[in-house]
């Protein structure tokens, strides 16, 4: 039976950080067996992931900033101008703007903005900033002042995933973690977001095992994305220094 995690030092009062939600696992099943109705732009697992991020790291009436990839602010997949910022206009995170409705229904104050905004004059502080990083991006969006956007106890949640190009792995995790550290943030957690329904394990494909010679060309099917959690407060991380519960 899941146990609610304990209250630590709070931000706005003694009950500020004492939700009844259980302590999260490092793997979140986000896909559902049945597809949801909508515009069809957003992956069915992404609203669930955003909702779970919001409910885990914020409380009602908190301010949540949703940094939407370029071209998706109007829920229309548009390709960016070549060489604008290196981000693609579509992909696994297309239709992210639709998740704003789910966040608003949870009682949070949602601020959907483009992740290419450059105005840094007196930015508002948010309790949670959610953004995405395309694995094929050569560099991150210019809103790298993540620390300036966060409340002192705020959380930055970056959704990304690995990819491959010419048979080689492209993993943006290192780039994101380095950028966040450069911005003064603390790498707090890594959570796997499952994009496929789990019924006692991912469904087995009927693809035959490749032969020895062309085994290199066959890749495992990507079934998860990565959620990277950063905090502006080093103290929160230090207090989190505990022995991981072994699964044995």
């Amino acid at each position, binding site marked *: 039976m899941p146990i609610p995690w*304990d209250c630590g030092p709070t931000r706005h009062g003694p009950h500020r950080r004492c939700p009844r939600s259980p302590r999260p696992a490092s793997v979140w*099943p986000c896909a559902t067996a049945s597809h949801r109705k909508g515009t069809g732009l957003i992956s069915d697992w992404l609203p669930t992931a955003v909702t779970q991020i919001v409910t885990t790291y914020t409380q009602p009436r908190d301010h949540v900033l949703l940094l939407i990839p370029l071209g998706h602010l109007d829920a229309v997949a548009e390709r960016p101008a070549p060489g604008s910022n290196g981000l693609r206009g579509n992909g696994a995170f297309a239709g992210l703007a639709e998740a704003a409705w789910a966040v608003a229904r949870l009682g949070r104050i949602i601020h959907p903005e483009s992740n290419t905004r450059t105005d840094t004059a007196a930015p508002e502080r948010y309790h949670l900033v959610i953004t995405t990083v395309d694995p094929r991006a050569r560099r991150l969006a210019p809103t790298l002042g993540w620390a300036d956007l966060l409340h002192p106890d705020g959380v930055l949640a970056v959704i990304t995933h*690995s990819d491959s190009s010419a048979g*080689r*792995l492209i993993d943006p995790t290192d780039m994101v973690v380095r950028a966040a550290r450069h911005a003064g943030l603390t790498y707090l957690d890594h959570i796997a977001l499952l994009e496929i329904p789990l019924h006692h394990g991912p469904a087995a494909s009927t693809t035959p095992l490749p032969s020895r010679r062309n085994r*290199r060309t066959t890749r495992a099917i990507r079934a998860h994305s990565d959620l990277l959690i950063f905090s502006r*407060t080093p103290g929160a991380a230090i207090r*989190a*220094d505990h022995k991981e*519960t072994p699964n044995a």
Partner: protein
Amino acid sequence: MPEQPPAAAWSVWPTGQHNETTQLHTRGYLPATRTDAERIPPALAAYAINYYSRPGDTVLDPDCGTGTVLVEALRAGRHTVGLTTSDRRWNITRANLTATKLIGAWPDASVLDAYPRMLTTPRAAGLTGRVDLVLTTLRHHPTGRADPGEAGPGLSRLAQTLTACIPLLRPTAHVIITIRRRRSRGILEDLPSAVLTAGHTAGLIPLQRCIALTTPLRGTLLTQTAPHPPKTTIPISLTAHHDVLIFGAPEHRAVRRRQERPHPRHADTDSTADSAPGCEWVPRQQTSGIKHPFHRPHRSAAGHGPHPAGHRGAAGQGTNVPQSTLGAVRSPTNQTRSAHYLAAVGSALPAPDDVPHRRS
């Protein structure tokens, strides 16, 4: 009995249906296997072996701990070799292998008391180009003797090990590294990225990043309990998976090996020793008088305690070793026959498939 390989692999490996205690118990491991806290879970090892190798292939764990990779490879019908420098873990691994052989596993299996850098010496020529899968884990607290030439524990040790494994790989081989999450003062260490860098530096080709679940699935949900939730302002997740990085062998090795070293099996029709430069393979019928190639260098020929240096390293119990040697784990002085396993394994393992035949 060899298990059926899965039809296709996903980036999420459902390897946590049973906790590790149950896995070790049901698969016949010794209770002492649990003393290796950084072991690869048996289900994870079995999943990786079944998909990334085929029956008859060779699986290597250069830092095998208590031998879960070796046992699962044996159960899956793969030949396997493991290295460790811990006397206690060497004994545990050998006992696990013996128990697995007793239930009918037929392939060759060997656990060597040697440093991973031994793989770069000519003494490991019997394995050169024959390993199809390297499956190991990033160990933060390595045990056993410290290698004098070792840069340090953790990532440095793993980087040296990967470099040592490169000459042993087939061109189509895979290198799989599992990583347990670790925190330093509450900050999560980005170990997968560091391992990716280490593998890239060693010359491996990064292919994919996967996760292996350590938590049971109940329908579409994961079950996880938190007996001792930490006092944090921001919730910290419970570990429910291991990171898995998959590398490929360097592509240039296929060309280089064709030019430099034809395999001795196909070199001569009369099975004599190969004279190709750089190859010190010893033919099977000439192994009876040689010294074990992986003896520990700091021990004298007189041996250390009851184990002579030349008879300490291997636990070869394969098709070319009579079943009577299976009891050697309880009687170390009976290891004479198995001591020459690695030299003889060159004739027992399948030949590299990219080396052209040379007819004289």
